[in-house]
């Protein structure tokens, strides 16, 4: 059966904590796509994910998972949801195999052969107690346990956090392979933006509890450019500020301009050329640079 429902839809979700406010979160993840959920530490990624997984209640707004609401379809959603939380959520004094057997009783769609294949692929020893596994192996075990019932929506909260760069790379590579094997929706939160460069179809940036940018990764990478040029005269700065949302000046009389646009086009370039003294240099930004622009107050 072709499934055309939206895997995840958040509408106007908000949550108040003392000292932190999650505000007006809108997210839409179509079935079969991978969304990178990016933001600095403390931006509200985990809080949003806890709301999606019904571990926390939103103060405002609605959450729809696979087209249904938690109140009406709790068990139905849980059957189709895979979740790897930020911190280890597994019992320490049991083995990975034991946990697999435990979950097998609960998920009708549990695929034990697939679970064993994943452990093998990730090279996680299934007969070792969780407490004796390395951090990377725990993360991989958690991913294998979350995938083995073949969830239609997989949520990963910083699966690569706290794992050293080498393990991170292999974990990501392996994750990429298994995620892409099937058409399932994935929400992947991280503050390490380079993780997403390869795997995400969509990217949402969250900063201080608000979504500041959300869209298709390729479009974002195409539209976000850094431009630099010298001004013809100081008065032209006014016009440049109208054209570019992010502008920095330096040099004598602030003649040297650096700017960032999220809507680059040949036409914009032409308009900038008119204000510039000489050439206008420009290059696309990567996801990490975009995050810095969105987060850093200097821009």
């Amino acid at each position, binding site marked *: 059966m072709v499934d055309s429902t939206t895997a995840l839809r958040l509408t106007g979700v908000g949550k108040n904590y003392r000292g932190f406010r999650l505000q007006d979160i809108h997210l839409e993840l179509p079935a079969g796509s991978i969304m990178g959920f990016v933001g600095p530490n403390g931006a509200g990624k985990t809080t949003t994910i*806890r709301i999606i*997984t*019904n*571990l*926390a*209640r939103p103060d405002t707004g609605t959450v729809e998972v696979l087209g249904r609401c938690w109140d009406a379809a*709790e*068990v139905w959603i*849980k*059957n189709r*949801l895979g*979740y790897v*939380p930020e*911190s*280890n*959520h*597994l*019992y*320490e*004094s*049991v083995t990975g195999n*034991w946990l697999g057997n*435990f*979950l097998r*009783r*609960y*998920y009708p769609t549990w695929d034990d052969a697939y679970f064993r294949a994943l452990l093998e692929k990730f090279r996680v020893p299934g007969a070792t107690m969780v407490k004796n596994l390395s951090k990377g192996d725990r993360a991989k075990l958690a991913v294998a346990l979350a995938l083995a019932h073949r969830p239609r929506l997989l949520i990963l909260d910083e699966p690569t956090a706290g794992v050293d760069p080498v393990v991170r790379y292999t974990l990501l590579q392996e994750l990429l392979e298994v995620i892409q094997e099937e058409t399932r929706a994935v929400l992947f939160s991280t503050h390490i933006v380079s993780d997403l460069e390869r795997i995400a179809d969509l990217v949402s940036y969250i900063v201080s509890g608000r979504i500041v940018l959300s869209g298709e990764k390729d479009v974002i990478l195409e539209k976000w450019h850094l431009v630099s040029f010298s001004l013809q005269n100081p008065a032209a700065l006014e016009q440049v500020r109208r054209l570019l949302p992010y502008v920095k000046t330096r040099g004598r009389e602030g003649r040297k301009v650096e700017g960032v646009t999220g809507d680059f086009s040949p036409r914009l370039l032409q308009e900038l050329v008119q204000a510039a003294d000489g050439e206008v240099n420009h290059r696309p930004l990567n996801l990490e640079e975009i995050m810095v622009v969105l987060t850093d107050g200097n821009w």
Partner: protein
Amino acid sequence: MRGLIYKDFYLLRGTILVSIVFTSLVSLPSIRAGAAGVIAAGSFIFASLLIIGLVSNEQGNHTLSFQRLLPVRSETVVDAKFCGLIVIVVFSLGYGLALAGALDLAGLVKVTSRQAAAGLLLGAAITSSVLSIYTWLFFRLGKQYSILIAILIMVVFSGEWKKLFYLSPSTGIGLTGAVKVSPAWLFFGAACFLICLRLARRDFSRREL
């Protein structure tokens, strides 16, 4: 739900023997309260250790969020713990009886049917009421708070516990041996159990993890 209950006892596997030995030692002073005191005190202490162990299996909020995401209603997670509590109460009453029997063989107490009945009733009532409250608080507040409150209850009511389990100040004989056996105690224990189960189901499905 069976899987959840089994999981709890599987995780407890390392501590059962230690609990038996510890309880046997701690319950010895209740010999002065006669067989009924031994049964009631022994089963209560043993059950407390087991239920604290059962709850301590949960590592902070993390394993609770793991269970909240299992494809069962979140109330089922609570039901499983309370079923585990029933198993523990029954098991610990059996243990209390066995302990009294062993002390009888050693000539330290005399187990009569009246004493056994009084001990079992009192043990069942106290164990199921106090530990139900404890389990509910665990689901409502988390294990740190519930253990703290349990210790507080122990300390505040230490005089009362002594009177119940150990000796009557006036006669020197075990108070429980002299107390009239009343099935009302069981109703009290069962009522506490049901009320706490209800509260825990409500609180756990609302709790943010």
